[in-house]
């Protein structure tokens, strides 16, 4: 019996791995009445795959049978691969047994679409419901919202899941038409809209009635494939920004396209996964969400694509020298956050430490500020600072010359001699 499960697990974990979401934090489900598990704190990465991604949830498809034929997807119906399907009870047993051994934080369940959207969604809900009601399971559950699923089902899903997500996959409507002609953009939006409204309603009802049943306490997220169609970074981030502001997304994930087939509409097999671009997009995403940047400051008509050589914050600072230098000992938090080489943690340490005395070069270094970038943009309580007016191009070349970057080899334009 374990052999069959093993085979299914291999097929259905392999098919689910291109979904990058692994977050298991942000929920508020504590363990009551001696049940199993809790998910009220921070997320935990229980392991890491050899590609360096976190393994936090048992991430599987319920089945990889699918009625759709989307060009970018491994489980599309025209692809000749092994197919399998889990029974509801099998997924429940796997989840519980892995959880009890402290392998995972919970379950991430997605599925190919068999028969129709509602039929598939119903099955996913059945698993979550069984875990919550029969097994008294308080671990994390992330369910996929199946595009086109009915409002009633989306409501029910939110009662048992901590997070719901629909993968928008292709950032633009035109791109979707090209690669997934059978799918309708509106079908993606519908469950997203429903979940958003339910969460808003839950939050307002919760204020009046304390025991309102929880609804998707960890919110919803989405994912976009990067580099499958020809979008610019600006188009991708504008689209991400749209989902953050209009659908209250907790996260937008960016997944560099991994070539899986030869198709004239897609990058050819064997082409590089755009990992550096993915990295720059995440940096931009962070700047938007935690550093108070507006998407238009980082990407606009003049700069539709991110600079590969330097990070987006440094790139912004180089384009806007009029905001610098910043006085470390006087500036507001919002201004400190915009200094290249100074992160969230350094800012909070600076704000704390400068109450006691003026900070100098050595203090900043001990605190953890990345001075090789920051030094061109700040004033602090030390002499011997960069006082020359260097100009952006000079600063950039100095920083590049005096630092190492993990992606440097991928874009180095310098000729190597050997």
């Amino acid at each position, binding site marked *: 019996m374990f052999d069959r*499960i093993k085979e299914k697990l291999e097929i259905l974990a*392999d098919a689910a*791995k291109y979904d990058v979401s692994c977050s298991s934090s942000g929920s508020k489900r504590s363990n009551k009445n001696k049940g199993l598990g809790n998910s009220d704190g921070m997320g*935990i990465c229980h392991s890491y*795959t050899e*590609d360096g991604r976190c393994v936090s949830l048992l991430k599987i498809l319920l089945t990889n049978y699918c009625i759709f034929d989307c060009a970018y997807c491994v489980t599309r119906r025209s692809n000749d691969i092994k197919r399998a399907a889990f029974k509801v009870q099998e997924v429940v047993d796997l989840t519980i047994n892995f959880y009890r*051994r402290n392998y995972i934080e919970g379950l991430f369940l997605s599925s190919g679409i068999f028969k129709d959207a509602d039929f598939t969604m119903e099955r996913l809900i059945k698993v979550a419901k069984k875990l919550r009601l029969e097994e008294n399971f308080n671990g994390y559950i992330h369910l996929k919202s199946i595009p086109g699923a009915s409002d009633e089902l989306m409501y029910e899903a939110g009662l048992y899941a901590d997070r719901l997500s629909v993968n928008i996959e292709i950032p633009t409507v035109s791109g979707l038409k090209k690669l997934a002609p059978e799918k309708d953009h509106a079908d993606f939006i519908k469950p997203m809209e429903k979940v958003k409204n339910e969460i808003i309603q839950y939050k307002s009802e919760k204020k009046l009635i304390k025991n309102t049943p929880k609804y998707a306490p960890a919110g919803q997220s989405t994912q976009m494939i990067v580099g499958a169609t020809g979008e610019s970074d600006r188009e991708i981030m504008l689209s991400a920004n749209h989902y953050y502001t209009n659908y209250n997304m907790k996260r937008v994930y960016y997944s560099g396209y991994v070539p899986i087939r030869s198709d004239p509409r897609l990058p050819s097999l064997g082409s590089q996964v755009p990992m550096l671009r993915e990295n720059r997009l995440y940096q931009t995403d962070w700047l938007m969400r935690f550093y108070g940047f507006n998407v238009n400051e980082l990407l606009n008509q003049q700069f539709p694509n991110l600079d590969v050589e330097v990070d987006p914050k440094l790139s912004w600072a180089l384009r806007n020298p009029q905001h610098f230098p910043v006085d470390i000992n006087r500036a507001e938090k919002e201004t400190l956050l915009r200094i290249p080489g100074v992160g969230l943690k350094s800012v909070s340490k600076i704000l704390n430490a400068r109450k006691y005395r003026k900070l100098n070069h050595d203090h900043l270094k001990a605190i953890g500020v990345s001075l090789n970038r920051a030094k061109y943009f700040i004033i602090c309580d030390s002499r011997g600072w960069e006082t020359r007016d260097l100009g952006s191009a000079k600063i950039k070349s100095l920083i590049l010359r005096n630092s190492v970057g993990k992606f440097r080899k991928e874009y180095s334009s310098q000729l190597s001699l050997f």
Partner: protein
Amino acid sequence: MQATASLNYDGTFNGLLTCIFLSYEEKLEVIAINPPDANKGDFFSEILEVITDKSKANRVLKAFKSYVSARGANSVYNAYLSEEPGIELEILKYFQYTFKHKNNVDGDFTNPHVLKIAQTAKKVRREKHRMEAFVRFQLTKDNIYFATIAPDFNVLPLINKHFTSRYSDQHWIIYDTTRKFGLYYDLHKTEIISFDFSINTDKAEANQYIFNDFEMDFQELWKKYFEATTIRSRINTRLHHQHLPKRYWKYLIEKNPLHN
């Protein structure tokens, strides 16, 4: 001139607090505070054996807590759990700095002792988080979920709460093989246990005898899952090792060959 002294204490947190109490009471200039098994190579100062006194310890702690934030107090305790040589003296300096200023110095990162305590506490908290992640239970024949760990720092006291609230409907043991004690949860409460630990987990024969019949099947399923979820075209060994340092692999079923 103040008398200089090296203090020997019993290694407990209360013992350390008693040392701090004594340094004030006797007006000592303390140059070292040593736990039982430390290297004591100083011939030039007086060596005092400090006997832990809970009421003295509480007095120091109470005074300290009246100045510092909860975060500061936690940092000191966490730094103590690091068991790093010399951390006791850093803690003493932190107390002295607090008492001198009669104020919370928690955020004063320009003071080397405050920064040292904050950084050490951070290392300990990281290890705590790692243990919450990397513990792998194996189900025994008598239905106890059993795990051994050998963490860099003494984090068992810190992970107790997490595991007790998470696995409240199963028996479990987490045993620290370096420090030779463990936690045992019996469905009601978690207790500190220590026993002569002579189980050799490497032997397939012994495992068959100790562990539940299906235990190996689940371990194999987990290994299969771990392999299947890796994306081959994105292999990044450096990142893998950075997140999953090799010294932790010994706990991880997915990084080791199966026992049988």
